[in-house]
């Protein structure tokens, strides 16, 4: 408190101004929580160190797309290395790591710094907070699930003999790409927040999320081998794969798990929906109970 009294006095002379304009209420509050959540996901408005993990992971998700475009530029024209419906599978690990790195940034900080008591004493409901933060993580995760696909589409269009023809032939793919990317982002976010909303410690949250995904993958594959093919539906990657195949209206190939165990894709989609519903409920319940 080093300012001099004269200076304080001079500035105090400006006086206090009453605000009697509109108060925008809950909708804007939710919007602000959402926007601020996306910003903190990428470390915007914060020190450079906070930007490293999200940007590196988002860049890593682009690597397969860029490599593909590089090969396509020098290789024969019809080489199809990564189909659009396979991309999510290729970057699945990066998707998990991104949610594990960013989820704790969005909600863990509010627990760690105890800012929740300030949010919960403002004109929002607790559920609003949960939904806004969930939406923020999902929106940030689109950087991983959609950005590479966008690069692929643009790259392919430019490499094609006629960009216009390419777009005309492929435009039906676009809504499918967006839908599958959105489902993947929502799915990973709900699972990620169901864990990171429970701890203020970033390392616990990250470890928990990574462990959840890889343990369930391992358990699902072992059980599918010894106890029956349907257990493969416990595998988060396969749940997402099933929904992606449905969206792109394709059948699983014979050499991938869903084809090998001959599990209906609809069952995989149901499993995914159930997981999203339960995880979201866990997040909402957490914020109804948490002390502020």
């Amino acid at each position, binding site marked *: 408190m080093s300012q001099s009294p004269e200076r304080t006095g001079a500035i105090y002379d400006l006086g*206090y*101004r009453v605000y009697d304009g509109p108060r925008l209420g809950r909708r804007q509050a939710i919007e*602000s929580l959402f926007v601020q959540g996306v910003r903190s996901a990428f470390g915007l408005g914060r020190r450079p160190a*906070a930007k490293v993990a999200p940007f590196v992971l988002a860049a890593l998700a682009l690597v397969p797309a860029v490599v593909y475009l590089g090969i396509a530029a020098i290789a024969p024209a019809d080489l199809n290395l990564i189909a659009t419906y396979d991309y999510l599978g290729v970057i699945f690990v990066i998707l998990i790591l991104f949610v594990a790195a960013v989820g704790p940034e969005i909600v863990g900080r509010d627990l760690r710094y*105890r800012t929740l008591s300030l949010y919960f004493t403002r004109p929002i409901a607790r559920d609003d907070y949960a939904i806004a933060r969930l939406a923020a993580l999902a929106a940030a995760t689109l950087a991983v699930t959609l950005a590479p696909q966008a690069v692929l589409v643009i790259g392919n269009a430019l490499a094609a003999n006629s960009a216009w023809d390419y777009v005309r032939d492929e435009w039906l793919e676009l809504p499918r790409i967006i839908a599958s990317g959105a489902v993947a982002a929502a799915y990973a976010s709900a699972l990620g927040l169901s864990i990171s909303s429970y701890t203020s410690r970033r390392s616990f949250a990250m470890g928990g999320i990574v462990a959840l995904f890889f343990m369930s993958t391992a358990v699902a594959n072992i059980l599918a081998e010894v106890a029956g093919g349907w257990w493969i539906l416990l595998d988060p990657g396969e749940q997402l794969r099933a929904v992606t195949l449905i969206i792109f209206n394709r059948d699983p190939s014979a050499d991938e798990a869903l084809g090998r165990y001959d599990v209906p894709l609809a069952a995989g989609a149901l499993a995914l929906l159930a997981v999203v519903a339960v995880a979201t409920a866990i997040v909402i319940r957490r914020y109804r109970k948490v002390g502020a």
Partner: protein
Amino acid sequence: MPIIETNDLTMRFGPVTALDALALQVEPGVTGLVGANGAGKSTLIKILLGILTPTTGAGRVLGLDIHAQGLQIRESVGYMPEHDCLPLDMNATEFVAHMGRISGLPKSVARERTAETLRHVGLFEERYREMRGYSTGMKQRVKLAQALVHDPRLLFLDEPTNGLDPAGRDEMLALIRRIGREFGISILMSSHLLGEIERVCDSLVVIDAGTLVRSGPVANFTAHTGILLVEVELAEEAARLAGALTAAGLETRLDGRRVHVQQRDDRAFDIVRDAVAELDLPLVRLEQSRQALEDIFRPEGIERVAVA
């Protein structure tokens, strides 16, 4: 109309009863909420804000029901918690503007009011720095600023001087007094330090073990139990003065060169003045005994209430 009203408010945490059928009324102005640690001050504030649900009982804040109209209440109040609550990796400007928007201010208004509010609380060029590097005093100012940015009608300040050094405490108290008097915002301020309350507040609510001990204007507290201290130069003069005052109908007690006068109302000042003038005594000191406010706590166990 009272700004805060509770009726039969009870809060139990398992076997612990934090508030026990508390009934109180708080009028507009700056009100001190006093009690020992664990008396239920923070619990009461949290219930009024709607972040705790009372076990039983009802309450109104700004005329709004705490059970049914929590959102409307929280639109018009500000809250400065006792504990740390600042995201230390943000800067004060960005954080306070963000909180202003959560409270419903349009974007440009939030930005303007953030700049003004931070200036009012006395935060200048450091407002663009990460809050991690702030001193306790600066952090307390930001906590106050985020409670004030949306121009609330009522502020809840939970132990606002916690952790401050004497100079920082004086500045914070001056700021609170200013917010109450000049900004015209009602304040409920909890503290376990009586001296602070006496300096800042118009009225006082005393709770102990979750029940109301007393409430009313601060002046009442001193008037009811107040002792007027009159000091003259010689003991012999003091004796003569005591005699005159007793004759005029005051209760007095002689203590060397001092006369303790039981001050029932403002008339006591006039009687003392007239008696001193009549006897032509050299008056050394005339003051209300500093013990007055603290005396309230004697029956409740003064050792549990720190005196600043």
